[in-house]
């Protein structure tokens, strides 16, 4: 069912239960569980290598969990993807910046799933793209080749694509990396608008100042979910020490959060 606005049936957007992800036998995420409702901005905080990107990839179905279940909008991942319910902006875009496409075409790619097989834009697609480009303030640059944008503008272009996609869940992997202060402000404003529209955002970051300023919820991770909930209650110095004191954590097994081994369904 194509819908530009996120549909509002049921309140739970992301549901992760006892998720484990391994890369060739090496554990990257262990027994992570979390649930996010509509209209939430959730920060995913952890050190480098804590498994933030891995959790996103698992939420996109790009890596196969070794245990646990994930549902988005109450749907299994492949169905959620086909319904274009999830937009994903990776940590580093792996795209070829010299590619012969302009900003408008890139944002239009967000609409592909909603179009017919030939992907010929309809008026509603053009409107969605215009609206998305307006909101990230890139409409005047729509005819630029994508690589001719600055770093911050590129981020905004990909954000516009996620917006044009009409996703109700957005996964943004370190969106503030290498972004100037003006773009950062614009992005945060946008994220707050998204929340008002009932979208659910998960934003990974290691900059703690962002978290208190606009995130409702926080997930602290280091391989497993160390703590999660309302920002005010989770953001204690104790928890932060746990999150960023990874070495000590691994050295003494008693300090780890009890992993409660494999409650696979």
């Amino acid at each position: 069912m194509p819908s530009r606005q996120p549909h509002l049936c049921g309140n739970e957007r992301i549901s992760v239960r006892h998720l484990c992800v391994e890369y060739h036998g090496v554990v990257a995420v262990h027994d992570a569980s979390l649930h996010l409702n509509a209209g939430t901005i959730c920060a995913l905080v952890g050190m480098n290598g804590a498994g933030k990107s891995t959790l996103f990839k698992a939420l996109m179905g790009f890596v196969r969990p070794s245990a646990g279940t994930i549902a988005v909008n109450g749907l299994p991942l492949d169905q959620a993807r086909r319904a274009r319910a999830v937009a994903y902006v990776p940590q580093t875009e792996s795209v070829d910046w010299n590619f012969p496409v302009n900003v408008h075409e890139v944002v239009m790619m967000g609409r592909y799933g909603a179009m017919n097989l030939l992907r010929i834009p309809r008026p509603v697609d053009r409107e969605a793209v215009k609206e998305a480009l307006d909101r990230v303030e890139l409409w005047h640059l729509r005819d630029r080749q994508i690589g001719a944008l600055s770093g911050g503008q590129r981020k905004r272009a990909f954000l516009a694509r996620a917006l044009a996609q009409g996703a109700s869940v957005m996964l943004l992997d370190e969106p503030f990396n290498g972004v100037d202060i003006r773009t950062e402000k614009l992005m945060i404003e946008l994220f707050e608008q998204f929340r008002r529209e009932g979208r659910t955002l998960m934003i990974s970051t290691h900059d703690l100042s962002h978290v208190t300023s606009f995130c409702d919820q926080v997930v602290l991770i280091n391989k497993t979910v160390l703590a999660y909930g309302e920002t005010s209650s989770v953001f204690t110095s104790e928890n932060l020490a746990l999150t960023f004191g990874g070495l000590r954590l691994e050295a003494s097994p008693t300090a780890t959060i009890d992993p409660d081994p494999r409650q696979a369904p």
Partner: protein
Amino acid sequence: MTAVLTWLVEPLQQEFMVRALLVSTLVSCVCGLLSCYMTLKGWALMGDAVSHAVMPGVVIAYALNLPFAVGAFVFGVGSVALIGYIKQMTRIKEDTVIGLVFTGFFALGLTLISKVRSNIDLSHILFGNVLGISSSDILQTVVISLLVLTVLVVLRKDLLLFCFDPTHARSIGLHTGVLHYLLLSMLSLAAVAGLQTVGIILVVAMLVTPGATAYLLTDRFDRMVWLSILSAVISSVAGIYWSYWMDASTAGCIVLVQTLLFLLCFLLAPRHGLLAQRRRSPRASRFPSA
């Protein structure tokens, strides 16, 4: 004036010239379109590999009296699958695997052709024989070309997205694995079609040069496609005329014209050409960085 007209018209009185021009124009459209994706995806080496790997398939098909396209397709796709498999199962880098697989297949083809008694002419496979193309070969080439054109036109946007940003393609539910192998299958088929005009050795030029030439001229994909097709068709037609009047190798002439067109664009392209770049930053080009 009349001299030019004679020069253009006289060859058309020969039936084989008309056929050659029509077949190679069609093949140029297919290869020109596909070469845009090859250029953007960086699959030139893959194109070279596939075109060499189809050789044993062609020989076996001729020996068994099957359409050569069938054998070529099986071995083309087979080589691609084998390359993917070896790359996945070992830590050997992709270009090494490609070099390894295609030479193996090519060697098999050479050995077969020297052992299987048949009326295949090795030089026709290696260097093409568009001036002496048979009716059944024309039919096969037309069928292949129409098939590839249809697939590429219908899926052009999906393939474009797959080349540009496979992660996003996956995240909106496109089957990138299917697109990947589909594009490689189209490559195999286009290589088989191109083989008719310029032969195994030079077919990679058909699959790469037009796209690369067009890429220097524009920043828009749609224009790139048209320019690529245009340059491929011009090269084929000019090359065939040239080879007729000079009595030179047809494949050589076609690819030479392609290369000359590329060089021309490399020098003169409005934004990405050498001269334009010099004009923009005379200092930078006087002291080129490593």
